[in-house]
């Protein structure tokens, strides 16, 4: 087997040193009954070439994405990824390292994660960030568990305009943890309607831009919450233009980091963003990197606040998370440092302008109009005259991909389609979508 260095001669010598006569004997401590029941999968050993062919054959059953124009969004966006991102993440000193338990041999990962935490705090306006969670949905679920620990109330208010996949994961975690979810409705603008906020909640969860693409107004919201925490889910690209949630008093900010240089990859691996106020540091989940000095007084980085974590605190840890998404966080840091603050702003602006151009063009078609009046970023909902599922299918025939309308419909938005627009969509592609829609009608 080509990933094994031992030769037959080595193995004989080693068996001799151990004092057993065969490899089988090394497994005698496993009950014979168990070993006898073993059944192989029925797979031959394959050469690299044969393996590549077999996997490529499966790849051929997927669409050839280059032939499609994508307006898919819902938390996963079709942004351009500069080549330098994969150059860095494919350096095996980063990719084949473990969790940085020995800081003296892990300064690369540790420095990069310290930078990542700083970038995330800059974007969100928060004081501290961890070095990643699994994905946006699990980051939100952990935020809600954290708020419950802090506020000691097992009820949480959640805006209905949350991504459905965030909500589904949150439902699972809350059900297991005995946390009740109270829904906050949205209004005609697509914004949350906080007129009747429930009392005795641990937190309010707001997403901005929300699942309809609408940017939420959060000024003054925190003041109305009393002891409850404000948890805000964000799209990191939008923060190039939108006020950081920290400014509106958010206590915890979470989000999906996929837009920051990660390919869609059928939903993973992604990057859970997690940042909060300094006062909640001890309650935070996840791994945190801090700056210190070494024996010679040189600046160096290390995992810190580990007494929160499972390997120290065990059953009383703030979370069970161990493995996270460090390499994805590295990608995000490289992506952001390649853009710079100004570049991020420009990128967000490109998304914003193109999305509004498309929205206005579609909105001018007879029977089509924006479903909500609130301000939006790079995704929007359009009320349409026909059956959305059938429009969706017709668009697909023209190799145009749009979000499945069923998730809108489940949120009570009938007869509508949503579109996400990134810097990758050209005017020609936008105009062509409008023309196809016109022909369908």
């Amino acid at each position, binding site marked *: *087997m080509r990933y*094994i*260095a*031992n030769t037959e001669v080595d193995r004989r010598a080693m068996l001799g040193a151990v004092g057993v006569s065969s490899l089988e004997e090394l497994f005698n401590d*496993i*009950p014979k*009954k*168990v070993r006898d029941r073993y059944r*192989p*999968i*029925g*797979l031959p*050993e394959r050469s*690299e070439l044969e393996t590549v062919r077999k*996997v490529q054959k499966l*790849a051929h*059953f997927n669409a050839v994405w*280059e032939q499609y124009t994508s307006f898919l969004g*819902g938390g*996963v966006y079709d942004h351009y990824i500069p080549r330098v991102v994969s150059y860095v993440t494919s*350096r*095996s000193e980063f*990719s084949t390292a*473990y969790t940085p338990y020995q800081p*003296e041999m892990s*300064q*690369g990962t540790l420095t990069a994660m310290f930078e990542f*935490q700083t*970038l995330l*705090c*800059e*974007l969100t306006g928060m004081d501290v960030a961890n070095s990643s969670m699994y*994905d946006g949905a*699990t980051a939100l679920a952990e935020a809600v568990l954290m708020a419950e620990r802090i506020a000691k109330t097992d009820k949480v208010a959640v805006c209905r305009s949350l991504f459905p996949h*965030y909500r589904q*994961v949150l439902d699972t975690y809350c059900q297991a*943890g005995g946390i009740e979810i109270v829904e906050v409705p949205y209004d005609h603008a697509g914004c949350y309607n906080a007129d009747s906020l429930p009392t005795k909640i641990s937190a309010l969860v707001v997403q901005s831009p929300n699942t309809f693409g609408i940017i939420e*107004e959060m000024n003054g919201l925190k003041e109305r919450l009393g002891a409850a925490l404000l948890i805000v889910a964000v799209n990191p690209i939008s923060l190039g*233009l939108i006020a950081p949630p920290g400014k509106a008093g958010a206590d915890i900010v979470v989000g999906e980091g996929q837009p920051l240089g990660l*390919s869609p*990859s*059928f*939903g*993973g691996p992604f990057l859970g963003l997690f940042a909060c106020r300094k006062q909640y540091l001890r309650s935070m989940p996840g791994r945190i990197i801090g*700056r*210190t000095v070494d*024996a010679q007084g*040189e600046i160096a980085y290390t995992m*810190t606040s580990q007494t929160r974590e499972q*390997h120290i605190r065990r059953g009383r840890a703030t979370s*069970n998370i161990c493995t996270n998404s*460090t390499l994805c966080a590295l990608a995000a840091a490289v992506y952001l440092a*390649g853009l710079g*603050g100004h*570049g*991020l702003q420009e990128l967000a602006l490109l998304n914003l*302008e193109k999305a509004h151009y498309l929205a206005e063009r579609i909105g001018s078609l007879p029977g089509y109009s924006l479903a909500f009046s609130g*301000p939006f970023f790079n995704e929007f909902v359009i009320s349409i005259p026909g059956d959305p599922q059938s429009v969706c299918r017709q668009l697909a025939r023209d190799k145009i*991909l749009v*979000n499945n309308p069923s998730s809108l419909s489940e949120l009570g938005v009938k007869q509508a389609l949503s579109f996400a627009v990134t810097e990758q969509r050209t005017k020609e592609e936008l105009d062509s979508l409008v023309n196809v829609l016109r022909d369908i009608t």
Partner: protein
Amino acid sequence: MKTIFDAKGKREGKVLPALDVPQQGLEKLIPHSLRRSRKPRIPALSEPELVRHYTRLSKLNYGVDDGLYPLGSCTMKYNPKVNEDLAQLPAFAGAHPLADEQLVQGSLALLHEASRFLCNIAGLSDITLQPAAGAHGELTGMFLFNRYFRERGESKRKRMLLPDSAHGTNPASATISGFSITQIPSGEDGMVDLVALRETLDETVAGIMLTVPNTLGIFEERILEITQMVHAAGGLCYFDGANLNAFLGRARPGDMGADAFHFNLHKTLSTPHGGGGPGSGPLAVSQCLVDFLPVPRITKDENGYHLDRNFPRSIGCMHSFYGNFGVILKAYAYILLLGDDGLHAVSDNAVLNANYLQERLKKTYRLPYDRLCKHEFVLSGEKLGRGITTFDIAKRLIDYGFYPPTVYFPLIVHEALMIEPTECEGKETLDRFIGVMEKIALEAKENPELLRAAPQHAPVQRLDQTRAARHPILTYPFDELPE
């Protein structure tokens, strides 16, 4: 430039495409109150600066490609390069998770077949690929246990049994899921004490979480008795799969009585760990838990593969989408590369390497549990004399260019050094490691300062952890004056 934030000033150059639609202007599109007033302080680096910065950082790191990485319980094996390319195939990397099912039949077929392989390796009925890491698999398993007992009207079963050698994630996962922990002591032989187990089993027990082999690297020889006892008491058996490398291709958790078993694809099945993640922790389950598995599940009928949400007894969703597809793909390719013979060659060589190291090193270091081990074993760094600790030994190993073993775990061994060589290391490397470990033991007696001052040949020396904890600096101090 020490960090990216040390780069001052604005770099020029065209990073983004020009706006090709009529400009409306930010002022018109987003109300002032919603806008950002200050640009985020993100430096813009030129591409050569960016590449040099991260290339320099990478050289301060140590990965499996640099050399031996004997971190116990972490299975730091070689990651085949071809798998990285396969994960980047545009058809897979470009697949949006919300694209129509018909456009992602290849991705679904891959997940479906990977599920079949993994169920087979686990010897269990069905699987969810959603968990993004081992601990996430544990959490999923605990949620399933919870639901199982609730549906049976046995909600009073709230106690989870854990051997004292368990990974920290086990009690954390159980507690989050609403279980209380009862610790089971290990016997003299390092295995679960059956008498203590029997005494604690009653109608309040939900189950047991076992690591097989345990974190001492010892296979629970009475595993069938343990699972039978727990089952007879009405409980369920959870197996932590961190140590699957010990019996891959030779035995199956399902045949040992597991009801749920999580894989760590980033350990056993060779996907790179990325300096902390991403990983993947698929959870395989026995028949009694299948109905509760997370949705969507990947099903197949005459029209192809489907993301099926129609399982009313499901616990719901555990992940934004379907799990870490890009990681699962690499593990799938690894299984294809190895085939059945390769799978058991993994455990054969992993166990042989560990036993060889154990046999040779026990002459110099104390071996608290002296018996056949599986893929890893635990030494104690105590009694080297002159106040030398395991911590010192680990730091001195760095000077010799090896990543140190896992230290101070499991908790039941004083001054633990947990060593897992994996199947990938050859005898030559192991002999070199043995030589260094012997030399360090000698240094501890003759020149202990060498150990206490170690590492001297690393990018940095020992870190001031107290300062890191007492005066946390968790982001770049922008306001700090340059030194």
